[in-house]
């Protein structure tokens, strides 16, 4: 009866390996340009501000603020069939980048809530031996 497929997982590339290495250690890291200091996300081969390839991976504070809170009632991928309606959020990190993530919400507490403006903190969810996915928990 278990016909719910696994969620899609990313291929780890040379470019993205440090991101996934960090999440496996319970940290959120992003690339910081060695020339101009711009912190970029999504992960990319060169700085989106100055095209410089040299960069370091910096630990983010893990704090953030919700910019948008979408609730997916439609199941676009069967892997989400059981947990729909589920919340996807756009998070503003204090370090500058924005990212999409989700909120673990097995009891559907946030289905009818509006979390825009709420402070959130990063948490980590193991998906496979290699992939640990960052998600965000509203600060109570």
């Amino acid at each position: 009866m278990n016909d719910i497929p696994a969620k899609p997982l990313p291929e780890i590339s040379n470019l993205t390996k440090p991101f996934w290495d960090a999440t496996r250690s319970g940290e959120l890291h992003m690339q910081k340009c060695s020339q101009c200091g711009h912190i970029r996300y999504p992960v990319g081969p060169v700085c989106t501000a100055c095209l410089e390839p040299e960069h370091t991976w910096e630990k983010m504070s893990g704090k953030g603020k919700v910019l948008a809170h979408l609730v997916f009632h439609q199941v676009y991928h069967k892997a989400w069939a059981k947990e729909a309606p589920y919340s996807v959020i756009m998070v503003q990190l204090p370090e500058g980048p924005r990212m999409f993530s989700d909120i673990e919400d097995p009891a559907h507490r946030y289905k009818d809530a509006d979390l825009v403006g709420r402070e959130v903190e990063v948490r980590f969810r193991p998906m496979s031996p290699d992939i640990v996915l960052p998600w965000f928990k509203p600060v109570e």
Partner: protein
Amino acid sequence: MSLSDKMSIVGVGATAQGKLAGRTSLDLGLEAFRLALDDAGLKKNDVDGILTMPGTTSPEGSLHYIRFGEAAGIDPRYTASLTMGGGTAGALLHMAAMAIEAGMATTVACVFGDAAKSGGSRFARASGSDIGWGLWGMMGAAANSALAAERHMHEFGTTSRQLAEVAVACRKHASMNPDAVMREPITIEDHQASRFIVRPLRLLDCCLISDGGVCFIVTSTDRAKDRRKKPVLVSGMGQGYTTRHLENPDWWYVSHQKAALADAFKMAGATPRDIDVAQLYDNFTISVLLWLEHAGFCKKGESGSFVEGGRIQLGGELPVNTAGGNLSESYMEGWLHIVEGVRQMRGECGERQVKDAEQCLVTGRGMALNCANATILKRQ
């Protein structure tokens, strides 16, 4: 030197729309091509340029132009396929105009066909780059527009009932269009009672998924004189893009649309006050609100109240999507918006004709809010 009014659309063709079992993107495009040739009074060998958009069910992908040309038995002087989702139709119209101006072709057919409804297109790829958003379930066509609606509601107090006004207007217009797929009128309450797809967007905020084919033929205004029907002038053209998503703080507000619209108005020497009717790309209701603000029909943040009280319905101040749009006529990814613009400028629209309409704004936008364009069509 400005291209304003130097090019005209001389033929349009649209197949039946909806669920067309057994049809393919290729044969729907070919039928639309035949219909557009007939509309223009042209033979296929009069066409020396072919620009196509591969349908979501076209197996040829970016090689679609070769397959289409082969199937039509045409060796064009100029051809290409372009994939910008709902931004493609307008971008190809502009490309046709530029190619003709440059002497690369004299008469260009722009063609699209898709069997998205019966061919099982899912429009639900996980989007994003390396570390894709799909990992968190941020997928499907509605996601990015839901983001736009969510932010608009938070910044400006826009309501779901105001989004409903767009759906109601499009459906009312579709009810006056015998070729539209969804013709049963709806109310704001019907919209409010429809289920959430991606909150804050409900089912009746969403466009259809359809089978169909559309073609329009562009030539120089000089050559257009001898055509079967009155040519419609391409008076203004503009495009605007953002290639970014998360790194663009204005991404959800699609500010790049403003550049597209400003260029189109400038080329046409027109202002929003000169526009009698508009075909605004409506993959979701929120998109119409954003176009209204960026075009300057209302101020930033005020589109929600602008669309209330029937203002964008036929008989209102600015009739929008007079054939029903992507929301209710058929989801031809904006191609039918150009067809309706041409028909309004020709005065062919019968019950839904905007009386004495002289200028029509047509917009398109595609991919993850990225690709925008605007065209002003003018009655000759």
